[in-house]
């Protein structure tokens, strides 16, 4: 805390080693922990400890990159993992640092709050004997009587917002200003606690998950519908509000010319939602920066992509697959990949590797494979690799829905299709029809009950720190005494209790006002 008010954290003398037994040692340890030096040290430690989290990928931020890191650095990664370096901000050692800082802060702030409460009602301190030793000092001789001078000084000081005390001894006035400095300081530090409480509250009772929803399809807010879900520590599935929504249409526009051709210009998802099974339908729009709020949970649009629709028939002519499959974008122009799996196909299971190009190239580069020319679906085309055999879905291990496990399959052909076209598979194994291209939105649903508390803390912290750094605390004393020639010697002393450069000028102004008062 940048202040010069009497401060237990600012002991200049070295702390003596204890010789007072158990409680003495405790007190010594407490004083060490709450000393400003320790706080400084912990602040540095916190800054340094935060660094690795920006260098090493973090599970909470980029889980895929953590996986990649394990592949790229097979020896280093497990060692880093042992020290929680993939979860720095949830690591025990990181928690140890900020908890120590919190304790140190509490040990410093609580006594100061108590002391501040007492100071609030107190009178400005008595006038020092020797005002000439103060950092700011002025002397002048005037013709008015001492009492009149002091009356004028009281008026001028009060007019400048000082708390003024005219001493009983009668020859001096004490004044102090800037009490809000310490108040702001305390508010700032207490607000840090409030932020922490808000963050902790969110971590305990909040949750968030992501889900891909294809145009025309719906989502209900139950655990099983999420592709990925991160619950808080005290999460219970009953906490999920029972809303649902349908993605009516998804619209993305892209820059069509200039150096940024192909870059996204806007995204918009039109949805129909209901807050419960029996509630009425409501139409709404979700776009980037504008989430939809349902029952305190927020639905965000994080990304988008294409979902080709297929109909697959097997050798008997039975429809064994029908509908859209979401595809994973491979580049900014939405060349995307996915897989279609038809386990019920006869005589053998069928699988298709699918590459989607929303705007197909005229000629496919044999080196790179098909590459989309533009992110919009101006000329959609799918490139299929058909496989027959065993899809490997029965062995119990979860499969990537975007990829085909071809280890027990054999390729039966390659073909590309425009919307509406059908490919008859060789040897009477059936057919596949490309019915068209739908878009999908990647949504995040999040609920954080602590965010208002954290915001409140943050606002209080900003207001507090401004008060602390911009309000200056200072004291002024005025003494008036008659000299031997019947005139009055006026002495003014000033002391800035904080960093204040304006005090000499302020005192000169007050003196001028005092003299102005006298002349009236």
């Amino acid at each position, binding site marked *: *805390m940048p*202040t010069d008010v009497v401060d237990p954290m600012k002991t200049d003398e070295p702390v003596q080693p204890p010789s007072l037994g158990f409680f003495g040692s405790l007190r010594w340890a407490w004083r060490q922990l709450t000393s400003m030096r320790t706080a400084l040290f912990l602040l540095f430690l916190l800054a340094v400890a935060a660094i690795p989290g920006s260098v090493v990928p973090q599970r909470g931020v980029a889980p895929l990159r953590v996986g990649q890191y394990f592949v790229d650095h097979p020896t280093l990664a497990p060692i880093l993992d042992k020290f929680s370096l993939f979860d720095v901000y949830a690591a025990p050692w990181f928690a140890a640092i900020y908890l120590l800082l919190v304790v140190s802060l509490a040990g410093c702030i609580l006594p100061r709050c108590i002391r501040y409460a007492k100071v609030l009602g107190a009178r400005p301190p008595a006038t020092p004997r020797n005002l000439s030793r103060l950092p700011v000092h002025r002397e002048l001789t005037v013709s008015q009587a001492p009492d009149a001078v002091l009356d004028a000084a009281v008026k001028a000081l009060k007019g400048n917002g000082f708390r003024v005390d005219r001493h009983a001894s009668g020859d001096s006035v004490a004044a102090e200003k800037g009490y809000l400095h310490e108040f702001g300081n305390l508010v700032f530090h207490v607000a840090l606690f409030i932020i922490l409480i808000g963050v902790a509250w969110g971590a305990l009772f909040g949750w968030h998950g992501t889900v891909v929803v294809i145009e025309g399809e719906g989502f209900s807010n139950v655990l099983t519908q999420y592709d990925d879900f991160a619950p808080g520590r005290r999460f219970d599935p009953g906490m999920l509000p029972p809303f649902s929504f349908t993605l009516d249409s998804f619209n993305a526009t892209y820059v069509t010319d200039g150096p940024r051709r192909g870059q996204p210009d806007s995204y918009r998802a039109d949805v129909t939602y209901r807050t419960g099974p029996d509630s009425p339908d409501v139409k709404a729009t979700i776009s980037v920066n504008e989430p939809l709020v349902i029952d305190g949970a927020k639905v965000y649009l994080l990304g988008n992509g294409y979902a080709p629709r297929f109909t697959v028939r097997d050798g008997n002519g039975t429809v064994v697959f029908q509908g859209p499959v979401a595809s994973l974008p491979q580049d900014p122009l939405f060349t995307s990949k996915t897989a279609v799996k038809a386990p019920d196909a006869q005589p053998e299971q069928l699988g298709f590797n699918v590459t989607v190009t929303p705007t197909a190239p005229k000629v496919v580069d044999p080196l790179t494979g098909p590459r989309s020319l533009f992110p919009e679906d101006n000329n959609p085309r799918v490139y299929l690799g058909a496989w027959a055999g065993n899809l490997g879905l029965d062995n119990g291990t979860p499969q990537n829905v975007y990829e085909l496990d071809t280890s027990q399959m054999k390729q039966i052909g390659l073909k590309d299709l425009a919307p509406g076209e059908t490919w008859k598979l060789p040897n009477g194994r059936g057919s596949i029809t490309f019915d068209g291209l739908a878009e999908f939105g990647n949504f995040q649903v999040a609920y954080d009950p602590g965010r208002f508390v954290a915001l409140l803390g943050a606002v209080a912290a900003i207001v507090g720190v401004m008060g602390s750094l911009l309000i200056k605390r200072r004291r002024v004393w005025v003494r008036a005494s008659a000299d031997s020639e019947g005139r009055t010697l006026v002495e003014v002393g000033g002391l800035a209790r904080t960093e204040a450069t304006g005090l000499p000028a302020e005192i000169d102004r007050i003196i001028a006002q005092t003299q102005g008062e006298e002349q009236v």
Partner: protein
Amino acid sequence: MNSTSLAQLSNFLVYGALIVLALAMAAFAIDLGVGTGRRRAAEAAARRDHQARVAATAGSASGGVSVIERPAVDIEVDERWARIGVSLSVLAFLLLVGAVLTRGFSAGRPPWGNMYEFSVAGATAAMGVWLFLTRRRREVRELGLLVVVTVLLILGVAVVVLYTESAQLVPALKSYWLWIHVTAAIIASGIFTVGSVASMLFLVADRYERRLAAGQSGGRAAWLDSLAQRLPTADVLDRTAYQTIAFAFPLWFFAIVAGAIWAEGAWGRYWGWDPKETWAFITLVIYAAYLHARSTAGWRGRPAAIIALVGFSAFLFSYIGVNIFFFGFHSYSGV
């Protein structure tokens, strides 16, 4: 005027500012040699004499505490070069403001959507902050040379390394929070820049004054002494650094909070330890340490100034390093 020619005009204004700043730099260098700097050097000489006298009398008495004072020296000073330097700086500032505005009109949005634009705006803010401070305190004018050199460096890097064509923003940046969050960050960065210049010069002046108190002079880095003699006292520089940083700190805090509110609306969480967030946090913590160090015995002065410079390095890294070295949400550099 259409968008392309406005962007062109903006570029010309930046080039113009670079030329004017180079001239301002020359003017301030001359002022350091024959203008204000000459008076400072004379003052320093008088102070040395004074010091010697105090030492002589104190030596006969009791060793005593030597107080560094700055005796007034009455010499005619040619302030013309300093005034020319300030005038050129004002001109450069106006050119930069014009460059930022035309860039904004050209793209039809706040002109800080990528690193080039942020750098030009940040350099403008630093010039503006410094010029504003010179109105309030005369000594700040003497930071001119180093401020102008710093701004020239920032602009040089912006033009040569970071330059990007004026263009539309990606959807994630289309929000009024761009105005609030990034504007606060730009102004804070301008103030931090001026504060760091003051801290750097403080280290030079402090070294000189301590050597003087210890009766040392000359040595390997004598040019630092002669620079220090031409600067305001360490005390003034220290206070300037503190005041600027104390003003920028709440603003930086605000920029982070505004960013968090925006992130909550755009990415679904207000804080996620994205590398940019992490480094903004590190910068905040180090500057908090600076403010505490200023009121802790044994940490005032030199250690505090070094912390301030470490804080500025962290700021620079959060600004440039993060976009170059790390992967994260704040990848709008356009580089």
